[in-house]
């Protein structure tokens, strides 16, 4: 087992990119300002100098540039394409859904599209309705795509490495508020497989299934709840597609209660799928309905008083768990 150091989430992702680009010359990086500027969030810093010609600044032409990445992926490259804000996924949906997701199937397996689409998401910086959405549920609705949401620096590194080696289009959603978070990250070859959930905290009283940064929120809530004698088990699916249903259900069979915590909009979102899946699979073990806590169903305001009300926070998670236990 390689040794671990404390590095940030941002550095962990960057380390994965460096390692994979060194390992495989087919890996390239494309996006806006990802080259010499090193990315608007410093998330590609140093790559441009280290990998001459393999880090490509695109024009502000998301649809076309992403389509080019798809064509490159069909013909021998393994592009990592960055969409600066997840809100701009809107612009690449056609090439993502009607091309990338379907090419392997349509070609009867003759073509593959080994491509990573990385993008950022989340509230917390008052960026407003067009720069704060968490839209992973759209991608998760599309057969042929994989969807990954790392919640810790170590997972970020390990999941990115797996995503880059995967022969399918994989979307990785990074919560910008996590970029600065530090954590133990093993050096070198540590891969976290896609489709394996991780129990971030053990607990007997309730299962909290949380996504991305919501895992950290749930962990804080769990610490608070522990003082009240409530032991929450925090389960992180890590990827929505493929989804590790078994680990989720096993946890619920132990705790008999489940809360989903999702930073995306509640209506027709990922939490619905997770709650429905648990409802259908663990029905006989459930002592209470599966509860959902997700983002408020509103365009996300930039206001300092309103924005913090949108996504679940420690207080709301704590309250939801209490309500669920109290039932």
């Amino acid at each position, binding site marked *: 087992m390689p040794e671990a150091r404390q590095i940030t989430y941002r550095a962990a992702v960057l380390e994965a990119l460096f390692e994979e680009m060194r390992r495989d010359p087919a890996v390239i990086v494309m996006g806006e300002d990802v080259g010499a500027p090193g990315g608007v969030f410093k998330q590609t810093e140093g790559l441009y100098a280290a990998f001459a010609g393999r880090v490509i600044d695109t024009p*502000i032409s998301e649809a076309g540039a992403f389509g080019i990445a798809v064509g490159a992926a069909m013909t021998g490259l393994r592009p990592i394409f960055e969409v600066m804000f997840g809100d701009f996924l809107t612009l690449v949906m056609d090439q993502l859904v009607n091309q990338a997701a379907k090419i392997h199937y349509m070609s009867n397996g003759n073509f593959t599209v080994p491509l990573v689409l990385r993008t950022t998401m989340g509230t917390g910086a*008052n960026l407003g309705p067009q720069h704060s959405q968490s839209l992973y549920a759209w991608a998760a609705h599309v057969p042929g795509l994989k969807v990954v949401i790392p919640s810790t620096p170590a997972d970020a590194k390990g999941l990115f490495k797996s995503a880059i080696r995967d022969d399918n289009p994989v979307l990785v959603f990074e919560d910008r508020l996590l970029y600065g978070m530090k954590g133990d990250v093993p050096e070198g070859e540590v891969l976290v497989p896609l489709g394996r959930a991780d129990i971030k905290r053990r607990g007997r009283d309730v299962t909290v299934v949380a996504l991305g940064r919501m895992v950290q929120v749930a962990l804080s809530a769990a610490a608070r709840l522990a003082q009240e004698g409530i032991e929450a088990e925090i389960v992180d699916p890590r990827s929505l597609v493929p989804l590790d249903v078994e680990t989720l259900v096993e946890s619920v069979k132990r705790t008999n209660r489940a809360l989903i915590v999702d930073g995306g909009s509640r209506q027709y979102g990922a939490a619905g799928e997770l709650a429905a899946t648990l409802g259908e699979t663990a029905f006989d073990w459930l002592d209470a309905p599966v509860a959902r806590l997700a983002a408020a169903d509103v*365009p996300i305001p*930039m*206001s300092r008083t309103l924005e913090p009300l949108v996504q679940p926070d420690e207080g709301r998670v704590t309250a939801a768990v209490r309500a669920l236990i109290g039932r």
Partner: protein
Amino acid sequence: MPDLLALYRAMVLIRQFEELVRSLYTGGMVPGLVHLCAGQEANAVGVCAALERSDYIASSHRGHGHCLAKGARPDFLLAEILGRTSGYCGGRSGSLHVSDPATGNLGTNGIVGGGIPLATGAALSAKSRGTRQVAVCFFGDGALNQGLAFEAMNMAAIWSLPVVYVCENNFYGEYTAIEDVTAGKSLTARGEVFDIPSRMIDGMDVLAVLAATEAAVARARTGQGPSFLICNTYRYGGHHVADKQDYKDSEEARAWQAKDPIPRLARQLLEQRIADQPRLDALEQEVAAAIRAAADFAKAAPEPAPQDLASRVYA
């Protein structure tokens, strides 16, 4: 004959407004990201001086100047930027999403190129409703590479819509220079490809911008269709306030500052004896007072209340 003093005042107002926003931002008073337009004032002012209040504009992420030039009140605008209820959008939307139907302002926009079809649609609406209204769309050189821009211009041309496309070419999109991402030696070709009359203009000369816009607006009002203007200009500040601009060279910046549209118009005002220096100084003081008042107003305005979160999601 344009009211040069009004143009001057409008540019000074924008410059001072942006300075205020910068200082408030640095002081931690401004939520989110702001993109300032200091250096580019002649475009907003020259274009909007050719418009009537009922005409439309769609703005970009660098939009404070457009809003002010189209008639926004500095106090309401600043309140919005600070996220206060007295702002144009109740403080929920901020710098990137200010809009105001009363001044025909369809909004600043967080999506590069996002406003281009909106303005085009307003032009379609004006034509369809049989009004004389004209729509103007402001966008940057970076937006020129969005397919949306081409699509909208093509439709404006075939339907002969009363719209004026104004590209404020400040030679950078974020930290990337225009020539690294933009093919074709001629930028006007990007309008000409649709047989849209297209002109390259000195965007540091408010009178040149005004004259070109007047011609474009006259075409639009008389049913002759769209026009495309490229105003060469420069942003003095970073892409957003925190940007240190190491990707620019200081020689370049100095050369552009030498063309600053405000002292340039001041010289004309003085030469043509439209105003003397004391008049200009007084005007600057007057604007400064308005700006101070706006700051006081905005800072004193309340933040939205929690129950406002879910209001007006639907009409």
